């Protein structure tokens, strides 16, 4: 069926096309000679590892970036898409991974943000609601359009985003990881909608690294690696294995391999941690030398859980034992003094001082170590920065370079190095390899494993399930603020994790509270 559709589509003129497009940010080339197109009525998947250039491609198609070389064709004509509003007027809609809805506004207002129907110069509310309801009904979605968006479940928000993109009469829809927050049945519903859209002749660019989904929905698949087009094939003529192999490439440093973990002393024990509305009854342990993963979908409240442990959130009941002693850290500073490190998820807004130098960023969490009587010691700072740059092989023009000028992977290394140099007994890391290339990912994993081997207890919050399976000894799965399972990573697969994270599989027994140091 797919091949028939592909053949039919192949005869049609592309709606949108990248022709030999390259893109550089400063001296950092992220895309090189990309040929890519989307035709009416097809779903064209764009695959690649983190950092392969998928998001930049979408950015070029949606007017967020301008190509450095090559051209963009829209309906066969060379076009400059200089802004997102230009993209929208060309009939290009986009839904990004990070939801961009205004939470306090209602569904209808969000869909028609800035384009509300007016009557006598004021917003025509009944008409606005009527249009929004009609639009959502096309998706088989029956939600009250006067509800504020932040009261909707994440999955419905995703649909609202898509509806918003389509309300612009889009001919092309760009979707960036649209299922990352969805449960399997919601994914099915979304795919129904996407198929209905293709029957209307809309072309869809579908960015994902989720193989099973891609092969369910895509007509054609293009693989990107290190900013280059590796292949474009009809989905029926390729296979998961081939696509994965192309994504990874020969230069892949491979997955890190976990050395046999022999069990150490318990460093962290959390019992029945609760903060109503956020999370309830969370219990787990992390031992010295162990890397424990915390998996979950968007909105699972993993961040709230770990932040409450390090003194950045509220807890109403439950206990935290650190090195066997009952603790409640009043602030992150207290937790740091006790020997806890915390690497936050958002490196640009939470982790780094972008317009400060690499060395200033590196020592920001250990200023007392580099000062005497309240004065900074410039030499010791420089030495520490150079050591870290070498240890992580950070690509930089020097330790006085602004961190904002480094690539994502190198920024991530700096953020991690900043905390590792404090040598905490317990390190909590959120999304350690979000948006970094495979090389940096391998290096970060290697460094985390080395630290664990030296006796650090590490808790990794990640949405990257394959990463968890290869890096962790145990994996905790969280769904909507509840612990769904505490698995031996050796037994976990991407699929079981996903099912549990989506809340479709209930644990047969209560998640264990016992120390799991028996795992070897």
């Amino acid at each position, binding site marked *: 069926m797919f091949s028939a559709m592909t053949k039919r589509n192949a005869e049609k003129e592309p709606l949108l096309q990248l022709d030999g497009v390259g893109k550089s940010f400063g001296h950092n080339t992220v895309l090189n000679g990309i040929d890519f197109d989307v035709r009416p009525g097809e779903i064209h998947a764009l695959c690649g590892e983190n950092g392969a250039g998928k998001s930049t491609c979408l950015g070029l198609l949606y007017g967020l970036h301008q190509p450095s070389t090559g051209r963009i064709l829209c309906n066969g004509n060379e076009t400059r898409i200089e802004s997102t509003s230009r993209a929208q007027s060309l009939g290009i809609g986009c839904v990004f991974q990070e939801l961009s809805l205004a939470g306090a506004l209602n569904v209808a207002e969000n869909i028609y943000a800035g384009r509300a129907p007016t009557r006598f110069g004021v917003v025509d509310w009944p008409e606005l609601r009527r249009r929004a309801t009609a639009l959502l009904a096309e998706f088989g979605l029956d939600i009250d359009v006067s509800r504020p968006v932040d009261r909707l479940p994440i999955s419905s928000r995703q649909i609202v985003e898509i509806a918003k993109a389509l309300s612009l009469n889009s001919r092309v829809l760009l979707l960036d990881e649209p299922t990352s927050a969805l449960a399997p049945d919601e994914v099915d519903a979304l795919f129904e909608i996407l198929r209905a859209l293709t029957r209307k002749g809309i072309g869809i660019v579908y960015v994902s690294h989720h193989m099973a989904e891609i092969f369910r929905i895509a007509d054609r698949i293009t693989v990107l690696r290190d900013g280059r087009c590796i292949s474009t094939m009809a989905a029926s003529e390729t296979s998961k294995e081939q696509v994965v192999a192309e994504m990874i490439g020969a230069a892949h440093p491979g997955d890190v391999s976990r050395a046999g973990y022999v069990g150490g002393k318990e460093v962290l024990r959390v019992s029945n941690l609760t903060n109503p509305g956020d999370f309830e009854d969370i219990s787990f342990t992390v031992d010295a030398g162990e890397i424990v993963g915390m998996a979950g979908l968007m909105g699972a409240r993993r961040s709230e859980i770990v932040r409450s442990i390090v003194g950045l959130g509220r807890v109403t009941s439950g206990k935290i034992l650190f090195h066997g002693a009952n603790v409640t850290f009043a602030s*992150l500073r207290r937790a740091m003094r006790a020997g806890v490190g915390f690497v936050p998820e958002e490196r640009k*807004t939470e*982790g*780094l*001082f*972008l317009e400060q130098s690499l060395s200033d960023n590196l020592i*920001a969490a250990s*200023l007392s170590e580099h000062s005497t009587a*309240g004065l*900074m010691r410039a030499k010791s700072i420089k030495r520490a920065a150079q050591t870290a740059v070498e240890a992580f092989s950070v690509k930089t023009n020097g330790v006085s370079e602004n961190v904002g000028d480094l690539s994502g992977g190198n920024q991530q290394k700096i953020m991690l190095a900043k905390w590792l140099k404090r040598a905490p007994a317990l390190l909590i890391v959120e999304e350690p390899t979000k948006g970094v290339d495979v090389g940096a990912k391998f290096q970060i994993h290697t460094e985390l494993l080395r630290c664990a081997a030296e006796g650090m207890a590490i808790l990794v919050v990640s949405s990257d399930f394959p990463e968890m399976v290869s890096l962790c000894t145990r994996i905790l799965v969280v769904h909507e603020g509840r612990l769904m399972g505490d698995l031996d990573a050796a037994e976990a697969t991407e699929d079981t994790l996903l099912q549990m994270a989506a809340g479709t599989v209930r644990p047969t027994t209560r998640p264990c509270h016992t120390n799991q140091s028996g795992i070897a």
Partner: protein
Amino acid sequence: MANTMTTPATAERQSSLARLGTALLKLPPSIFVIVCLVVVSLALVPVLTKLPFQMVILRQAAPVGLVICAQLLVMRANSIDLSVGGVFILMNYLVTSSVLHGLPDGLVLVLPVLVAMVIGAINGFFVAVLRSSSVVVTLAMGSVLMGFVLLLSSGRPPGSAGDFIKWLGVGKIGIVPIAAIIWLTATLALEVYLRRSVYGRFVRVIGSNTNAAALSGIPVAKTLFTTHVLSAGFAGLGGVLLAGYIGMGSVKIGTDIVMTSIAGVILGGITFGKGQKSIIGAILAAYALAYVFNIMTALKFGEPAKLIVQGMIIFAASVVASVSNRKT
């Protein structure tokens, strides 16, 4: 030899010209203002460029310079202090009324500054601990202080400042005004301290990204609090010097000092949080503002024209500042 060097020398000159261009854009706008002012005064009132007059300008710049420095400090930490006008009025009241009468010279200087720091501490408590908006809190504080002084001084004849304070305000060592020495020593010492100290580092990273600072274990609240206290101390010192310069009690003094302090920060080339630029820009800004005032007085500008010109300069400075921020 000159011939053989031509090609590399030309290339070098070109690249150094380009470098000069970018370097010029990074300079604080106050430098350009001063250059313009010197040209204007050479053409219209050349006597102003003579050394004695320059010293007069320097003396007038001192109180303004201290309050600009105070504003700069809080703005580096992404905060603001709009109560400096109220602080100036209070300082004037403390110095010229009989409250401190008969105390030793040192205390007459130190006590008002300490009072200013207590006001800074109250501001700091609201901003840092209760996380109130610094704009609202310090604006309210300025209003409270002004009303407070009006209440205390109502129905009384204005007093006059003691000899010691007057000496600080108008006295000279050689030809150099004492007020200018105090101003420059205090601001340069602060700058050196900010550059070298852990506290200065705290201020810098908080200004750069408050969120990331908190998540790096930087004591954000404590630093903000200290910054407000320290800043108010500098403003207080400026207020005392101005009271010494004027010599008598006044409740009008300092009403436009809030505006001037922010104008000075902008002229100095510093925007919110971007605490990288040097204090020199702010020092020159104070000097430029005092210079403008003198030129206009010499040219017999009336009060309305002065206000308009002052406003225009601030407009121009903010345009230069935004252009240079975009380029860098």
